[in-house]
């Protein structure tokens, strides 16, 4: 289908690429997919990592590669950029809704407020994604992936994960 494909169709295809560690969300929902442009006969796909050491980046690149090649698209390159730095502020409302539905508390404060609180050691209350209670506590600031923390809900007595403000 090369030749007739346009940027919109490539974007549409990439909407099918899920985050390998949180497969409820697409890389577009998360803001990992920054841009797709067509230049000199090549689709340039720009992605950015959530955390500097995110081990999922390699898999994401492979997944993009596979989705496009399955459609016969080979004239593309994937570019990883660091600037501007990824932030949870970019996560779409749709993304946050899907995250909560999946059982992960979405980031609830802005990155700026979050940074200010960090240096003083203050912690913000996190809403339980299951019962919406605010009486929850942090059990571990680090979880199964670099981008998540572990909490416990004192109301419904369920452990849950939070997507950390970043």
């Amino acid at each position: 289908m090369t030749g007739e494909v346009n940027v919109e169709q490539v974007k549409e295809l990439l909407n099918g690429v899920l985050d390998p560690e949180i497969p409820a969300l697409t890389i577009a929902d998360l803001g990992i997919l920054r841009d797709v442009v067509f230049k000199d006969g090549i689709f340039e796909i720009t992605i950015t990592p959530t955390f500097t050491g995110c081990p999922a980046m390699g898999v994401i690149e492979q997944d993009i590669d596979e989705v496009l090649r399955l459609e016969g698209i080979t004239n593309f390159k994937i570019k990883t950029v660091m600037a501007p730095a990824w932030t949870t502020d970019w996560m779409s409302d749709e993304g946050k809704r899907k995250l909560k539905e999946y059982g992960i508390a979405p980031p609830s404060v802005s990155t700026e407020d979050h940074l200010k609180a960090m240096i003083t050691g203050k912690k913000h209350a996190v809403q339980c994604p299951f019962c919406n209670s605010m009486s929850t506590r942090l059990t571990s600031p680090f979880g199964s992936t670099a981008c998540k923390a572990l909490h416990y809900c004192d109301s419904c007595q369920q452990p849950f994960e939070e997507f950390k403000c970043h």
Partner: protein
Amino acid sequence: MNKATISFEEALFEYCLRLGDTSLIMGQRLSEWCGHAPYLEEDIAISNFALDYIGQARIILSYAGKVEDKGRNEDSLAYLRDALQFRNLLMAEQPNGDFGTTVMKQYLIGVYNFHLYSLLQKSKDSEIAAFAAKSLKEVAYHVRHSGDWVSRLGDGTDESKKRIQDAIEDLWYFVDDMFQIDDVETMLLSNGVAADLNEVKKLWTATVTDKFKTVSLTIPEVNNAMRLDSRKGNHTEHLGYILAEMQVLPRSYPDAKW
């Protein structure tokens, strides 16, 4: 290093090594804890920090390679340089010691990075600014977590208090080294690329002093600070052992892929 002979690119390369090597050595040191931390959550936390540090090192060393323009990438810079070519802070290479020492080192360097990266976000070098903005958010978690531990150990038992205070005494010899300003720093500061280490020192001292006050830990008088200079590649004996372990595979099997 002679002022007359150093070019802007050379200075920028040096500066990137300083940022990247401190992260790399911190990451390597912390990964020694993997599987040995006091309990599972802490093991995960320390491994997370190590991962952050290695990720940060990768970004800035890869940029260093581009600045140098001699065909070296982040891997060749990490694995194929010797101790004399490393520019990490002396504190970073110190042994993990007990958990208190690990926590204190993590805290002191975490606060340092927090203030350094806050300033570097405004660097005129867009790659360094992006690196700083990105890393800052990770470092914030390091500061909060290690800061929590400093409070807990400082406010804990007599034993925990003694150990965390001992850690401060041991590590304080390497504080001077964190704020040394040489020709590279001066040149890049005047170009708006580097952060002012005097400013970092002011902010760092304020944060650390406030923290120590809340848990009655004391800052020791150090009259004989370590005179080695990490900026010139003069390291303590510990770095060579770290490199030997970290580099053995790529040095033994130069084209190994894993």
